[in-house]
């Protein structure tokens, strides 16, 4: 009986002495219990972030940009048309959206393989908006320590006033964002008028409300929690990176053991890290980069700026934390970017998708042409003994101009085409009005009950238009 107990104790001791607990400490991340108040330190990557963020300038001016007298980007949902810089994309061309999404997804994967989560650190709208929100906090409430104090403070007039001002500014940013998003789907002037006169359509109100509240809550309160628990990107980053991926990395060989800074010559055993914790203090997601790569790291480079500042001050070489790959750090030879199979494969996929989109945009058919063969009755015997089939013709004119076209059918001898629209007719721009066409033929042509026929639409002014549609002529087998 005593032996198993002894074994248990041994196991327990082993467990306690192992690194498991120390490691587990690193696994622990902030689950939303406390707000992260990061310092802001100027530096190269801080500037880079500003430059990268400026791309959102185009997001805000997008609804007002004109292109050849039309809106440059306009998603017209009620009319089911998407206007992109003079090109009108119809739902029928939506396959291009799939290709576009593939391209964007693979681009993300490719960028991740080369340089990690560049998107998160520099371009992700969520982190960009968080950056602005915390900037508001900085000017309103002061340094991180002051902000933390204010958080802990009980509710008084000062706190209420400060919070109220902050929330109003946050909500204004949210409102402007929501308005801009909605404006991509509606006429901007009409939308603004609708909001001001309180008669905007319900969908516009819904969009404004959801986006405003969404920005306010997600950006103002959830912040890095969104990256941790909502965004799938961090969850799958480990399958996208390898040992050649560059990442903000703490050079542990150089840094350890961490030793407090003292004036005078450096102790030969001491590492370069002076445990100032500045890298941790500036991290917008509350990550200690010295624990290695982790899911919270959005690779924004703020810790690099912080560390470089400190190293500069204490006259030690910069780059204790730097963008570096694991292979490079361990002294291995790093292959050139375009010699890595991942990069080659990703690039191929991106180029294929891109050429698909370019092809698609250049080959948007001017007409969408469909024919339905009426099934009730399948055919009719006419008074002269001929057989008549009825077809419903649907031609959608996707161009912005009215088109004069002719419709004909071929493929069977002695085919008589009777169209409700006549032989030549005008297709109104952007419209589709179904009409009927009757095909009449002598009964004796039916050697089989199904004969293939081909309908053909030709542009009478625009000779490039020549579209065929295959259908069936059905009659009694003779």
């Amino acid at each position, binding site marked *: 009986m005593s032996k198993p107990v002894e074994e248990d104790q041994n196991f*327990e001791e082993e467990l*306690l002495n192992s690194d498991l*607990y120390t490691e587990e*400490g690193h696994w*622990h991340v902030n*689950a*939303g*219990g406390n707000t992260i108040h990061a310092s802001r330190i100027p530096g190269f990557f801080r500037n880079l972030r500003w430059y990268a963020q400026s791309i959102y300038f185009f997001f805000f001016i997008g609804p007002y940009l004109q292109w050849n007298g039309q809106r440059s980007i306009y998603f017209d949902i009620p009319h089911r048309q998407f206007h992109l810089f003079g090109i009108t994309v119809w739902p029928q061309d939506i396959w291009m959206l799939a290709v576009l999404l593939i391209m964007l997804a693979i681009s993300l994967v490719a960028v991740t393989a080369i340089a990690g989560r560049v998107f998160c650190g520099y371009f992700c709208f969520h982190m960009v908006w968080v950056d602005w929100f915390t900037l508001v906090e900085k000017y309103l409430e002061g340094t991180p320590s002051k902000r933390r104090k204010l958080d802990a403070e009980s509710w008084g007039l000062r706190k209420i006033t400060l919070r109220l001002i902050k929330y109003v500014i946050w909500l204004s940013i949210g409102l402007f964002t929501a308005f801009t998003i909605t404006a991509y789907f509606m006429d901007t002037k009409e939308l603004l008028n609708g909001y001001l006169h309180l008669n905007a359509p319900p969908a516009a109100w819904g969009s404004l409300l959801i986006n405003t509240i969404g920005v306010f809550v997600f950006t103002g309160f959830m912040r890095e929690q969104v990256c941790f*628990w909502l965004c799938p990107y961090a969850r799958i980053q480990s399958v996208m990176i390898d040992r050649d991926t560059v990442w903000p990395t703490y050079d542990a060989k150089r840094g350890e053991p961490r030793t407090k800074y003292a004036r005078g010559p450096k102790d030969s055993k001491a590492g370069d890290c002076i445990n100032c914790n500045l890298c941790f203090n500036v991290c917008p997601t509350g990550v200690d980069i010295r624990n290695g790569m982790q899911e919270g790291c959005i690779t924004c480079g703020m810790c690099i700026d912080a560390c470089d500042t400190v190293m500069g001050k204490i006259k030690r070489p910069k780059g204790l934390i730097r963008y570096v790959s694991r292979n490079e750090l361990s002294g291995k030879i790093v292959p050139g970017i375009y010699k890595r199979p991942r990069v080659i494969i990703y690039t191929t996929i991106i180029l294929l998708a891109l050429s698909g989109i370019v092809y698609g945009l250049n080959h948007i058919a001017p007409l969408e042409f469909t024919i339905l063969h*009426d*099934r*009730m*009755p399948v055919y*009719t*015997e*006419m*008074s*002269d*003994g001929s057989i*008549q089939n*009825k077809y419903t013709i649907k031609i959608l004119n996707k161009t912005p101009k009215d088109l004069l076209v002719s419709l004909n059918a071929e493929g069977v001898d002695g085919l008589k085409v009777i169209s*409700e*629209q006549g032989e030549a007719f005008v297709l109104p721009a952007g419209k589709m*009005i*179904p*009409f*009927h066409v*009757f095909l009449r033929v002598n009964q004796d042509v039916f050697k089989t009950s199904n004969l293939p026929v081909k309908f053909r639409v030709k542009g009478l002014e625009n000779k490039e238009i020549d579209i065929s549609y295959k259908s069936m002529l059905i009659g009694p087998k003779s």
Partner: protein
Amino acid sequence: MDNNMKPDDKEKYGSDTGHEWDGIRELKNPPPRWWMISLHASWIFVVVYLFLYPSIPLLHGSTKGLLGWTMIKEYKEALTENDKIKAPFLSKISGMSAREILADAGMRNFAEQSTKTTFGDSCSACHGGGGQGKKGVYPNLTDDEWIYGGDIDTIIETITYGRQPAMPAHKDILDDASVNKLADFVIALSQGSATPEGWNLFKRSNCVACHGNDARGGNFNKNGSGAANLTDKIWRFGGNRDEVLQTIRFGVNQDFPESRKAVMPAWGERLSADQIKMLAVKVYSLGGGQK
């Protein structure tokens, strides 16, 4: 026991419940905050829903809910909304003649589409869902054989006032040999091989009074008498010899059980003029409309 735990465990795992058995501490591990928020949001939603909507089943019906929402109300509202969308088109239809509708592709399509249910309710019982009729019993509307005329005005007239043709029974008027010869003659006529003797018999037997000298239907008025065109390939009551004999012998709408029954009801009392106009446009477009 406490000494088995690291000092920072308390901080890491949070406080305990105060329960301890044989050194095993029961920790307080509250679910994540977002989880608790969704839990509370869910039950609040349920309570609000209970008050606002019909929800608790009682013996007779259920609680009504404060909003007074019912499914049938929602359906009726949707119907009103649909009517509102159709209203401008329908008023346009009122102001247009059937010929004008036929000339306007958009209105023609609207008329055809929106009269589908009327056609299904009123017409398809006899004429079939697609207007194909039933051979020998109900006329096919998709072909180009029109006993009363296939122009749009006559179609409107036919739907509004109905039709009730008559053909006398010839079994007591003509001898059986003549009836048989007449049957052979009209079948030959339809195949384009009529003989002069046949024509003579046809004229002698007074068939021309209704079917006309050329056997192409009647000439009482501009739309014909309701007597069929005997020269084409379409047979109103069936084209084989027995069927033709039966029609000649017992007539149409006569007092014999074998007599052909052919009555088109008048829809003018049941349908509005606009409904009939749209129906006529659909019938005209089925395949045989004539100018």
